[in-house]
C-alpha cells in the first residue's frame, strides 16, 4: 500500500492507464489538426475525434451530433446557461437553479442576474440535500426559460431526482440543463429517458484527462445557443477552438470504459463505502453523515466529526488525501455553502471531511483510513475544549461565545 492514500475522487481522478496508453500517440506521431481537410494527418485526427464523440454520446444515450466538446464542465455550464439565456431572452428572462449547485452554475446565473437583467430563482434543498419538486414546479412562470439542476453534488454526493425534473420541464416547455460532472459515468444518465436538453460532462472526473469536457445539446426538439467563444466556427459554431485530439481520445476511451464497467464498479465502491461508514460509526460517537444516504454517489462519504475542526483533522490524517468543508481550508474563511444550505450548523460544517472513493480504492486502504481517522479524532478530541465541555455535560448552545 502506497502512502499517501488518495481519497478525493470528487475533486479529480487519475487517468486510467488504459486511457493513457490510447492517448500517447496522439501527442507525438499523430499530431494533425482535425480541422485540416487537405491531408492524412488531419483525416486521421478527425476520425479519432468523431470516434470519441460517438463514445461520449453512447454513454448518455445521445446522438454524436449532439456533443459539443469544451474544456470541461465549468465551460459547459457557462456555455449552456449563458448560451440559452442570450438566445432565448426574447422568450423570457427567468432562470431557476438551486443553492447547492456548483459555483460554475451559481456564479454564471448571478452574473446574468446582475449584468444582463435576468431574474434567478435559487431553490432551497431539504436537510438531506434534495430538491422539492413541488417547489420547483411552483417556481416556474411564463418567463422561465431554463432550469439548471445538477445530477449529483460534488461535496455530499447527493443525487437529485433528474428524471422527474426532466419530465416536469418538458411538460412546462422549459429547457432543462443538468450539470452532470459528478453523475456521468457514476450513475446511469440517459438524456432521452430523462428529458435533458443540455448536459455538462467533465473528462477528469471519470478517469480521463483534465482540460476536456462536453456539453450535450439536444437536436430534437432543437436547442439553440449563443456561443461564448468565437473563432473558427468549430463544433457547429457553438464552441470555436482547435480540438485537442489526445484529450478527446482519452475522454472518449474513459467514457467507453465507464459504460462497460459502471455497474460492477459501483457495487464494489459502494461496498467499500459501507465498510468505511460502519468502521467509523462503530468506533466513534458524535459523528454525523451529511446528506442523503440513499440517493447518493457510491464513492462519497461526507462526515462531520463533532468537536474536531476540519483542517486540524486533515493535518492529523496527512497520509490520507481528503477535503474539508471547514472555513480554514478556503480562501474566503466561510464554511461550506452546501452544508449550510442543508441546515448543518456552522460549527458542524467546520468539522466536516469529504472522503471520495473510486476506481483504485482498495479494502486495505479503507481499513487504514478507518484506523487513522479514529486515532486522529481521539487525539484531537482530547485536545478540544469543546469535547471536554460536552463530556462534562455543558450545553454548548447555552454558552455565550465571543464571535470574532
Amino acid at each position, binding site marked *: 500500500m502506497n502512502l499517501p492514500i488518495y481519497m478525493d475522487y470528487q475533486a479529480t481522478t487519475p487517468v486510467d492507464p488504459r486511457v493513457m496508453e490510447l492517448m500517447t500517440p496522439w501527442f507525438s506521431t499523430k499530431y494533425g489538426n482535425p480541422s485540416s481537410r487537405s491531408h492524412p494527418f488531419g483525416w486521421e485526427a478527425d476520425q479519432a475525434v468523431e470516434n470519441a464523440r460517438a463514445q461520449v454520446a453512447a454513454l448518455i444515450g445521445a446522438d454524436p451530433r449532439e456533443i459539443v466538446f469544451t474544456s470541461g464542465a465549468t465551460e459547459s455550464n457557462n456555455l449552456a446557461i449563458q448560451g440559452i439565456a442570450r438566445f432565448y431572452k426574447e422568450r423570457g428572462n427567468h432562470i431557476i437553479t438551486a443553492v447547492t449547485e456548483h459555483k460554475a452554475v451559481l456564479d454564471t446565473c448571478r452574473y446574468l442576474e446582475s449584468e444582463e437583467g435576468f431574474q434567478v430563482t435559487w431553490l432551497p434543498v431539504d436537510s438531506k440535500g434534495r430538491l422539492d419538486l413541488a417547489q420547483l414546479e411552483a417556481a416556474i412562470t411564463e418567463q422561465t426559460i431554463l432550469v439548471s439542476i445538477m445530477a449529483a453534488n460534488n461535496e455530499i454526493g447527493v443525487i437529485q431526482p433528474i428524471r422527474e425534473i426532466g419530465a416536469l420541464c418538458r411538460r412546462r416547455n422549459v429547457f432543462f440543463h443538468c450539470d452532470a460532472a459528478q453523475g456521468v459515468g457514476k450513475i446511469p444518465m440517459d438524456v432521452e429517458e430523462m428529458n435533458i436538453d443540455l448536459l455538462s460532462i467533465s473528462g477528469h472526473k471519470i478517469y480521463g484527462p483534465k482540460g476536456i469536457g462536453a456539453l450535450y445539446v439536444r437536436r430534437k426538439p432543437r436547442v439553440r445557443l449563443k456561443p461564448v467563444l468565437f473563432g473558427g466556427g468549430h463544433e457547429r459554431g457553438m464552441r470555436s477552438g482547435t480540438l485537442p485530439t489526445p484529450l478527446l481520445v482519452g475522454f472518449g476511451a474513459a467514457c467507453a470504459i465507464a459504460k462497460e464497467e459502471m455497474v460492477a464498479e459501483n457495487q464494489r465502491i459502494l461496498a467499500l463505502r459501507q465498510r468505511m461508514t460502519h468502521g467509523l460509526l462503530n468506533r466513534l460517537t458524535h459523528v454525523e453523515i451529511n446528506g442523503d444516504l440513499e440517493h447518493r454517489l457510491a464513492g462519497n462519504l461526507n462526515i462531520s466529526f463533532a468537536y474536531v*475542526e476540519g483542517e*486540524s483533522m486533515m493535518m492529523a490524517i496527512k497520509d490520507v488525501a481528503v477535503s474539508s468543508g471547514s472555513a*480554514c481550508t478556503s480562501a474566503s474563511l466561510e464554511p461550506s455553502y452546501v452544508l449550510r444550505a442543508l441546515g448543518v450548523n*456552522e460549527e458542524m460544517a*467546520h468539522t466536516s471531511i469529504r472522503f471520495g472513493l473510486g476506481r483504485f480504492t482498495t479494502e486495505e486502504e479503507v481499513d487504514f483510513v478507518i484506523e487513522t481517522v479514529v486515532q486522529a479524532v481521539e487525539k484531537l478530541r482530547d*485536545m*478540544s*475544549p469543546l469535547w471536554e465541555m460536552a463530556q462534562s455535560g455543558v450545553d454548548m448552545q447555552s454558552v455565550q461565545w465571543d464571535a*470574532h
Partner: protein
Amino acid sequence: MAYNEKVLDHYENPRNVGSLDKGDSQVGTGMVGAPACGDVMKLQIKVNDQGVISDAKFKTFGCGSAIASSSLVTEWIKGKSIDEALTIRNKDIAEELALPPVKIHCSVLAEDAIKSAVADYRSKQKGSL
C-alpha cells in the same frame, strides 16, 4: 497549503495540553473564540505566590495554526510574571510561527487567551481578598 515547520512541530508535539483545576484560586482560565467561527482556545495559568506563572495548559478546537499558537504561548508564559506574559503580542506569535496572512487571527486569539486567563486570575484574587 504547506505548513511551516514550527507549526507542524507544535501541532504534532503540542506542549502542555490539558486542564488545570478551574476551582483553584491560583488558576486563571481564559476561553476565547467561538465554535461557529471554527476556533475556540482554552488557556489556563497557575500563578504562584510570587506572581509567576508556574504552569500553563491549553485545549484548542481549531486549525493547525490555532493549535500551534496556543501551544507556543503556553511555552512562552511559563516562568514569566503575569505582567510579562501580558506583553506578548500576536505579532510575536505570528512571526515565530511564520503564519500566513489568513492565519493571523489564530495568533490574535492566542494573545486574547492570555489576557482572558490573566483577567480571570485577577478577578479571583480580588474576590478572595
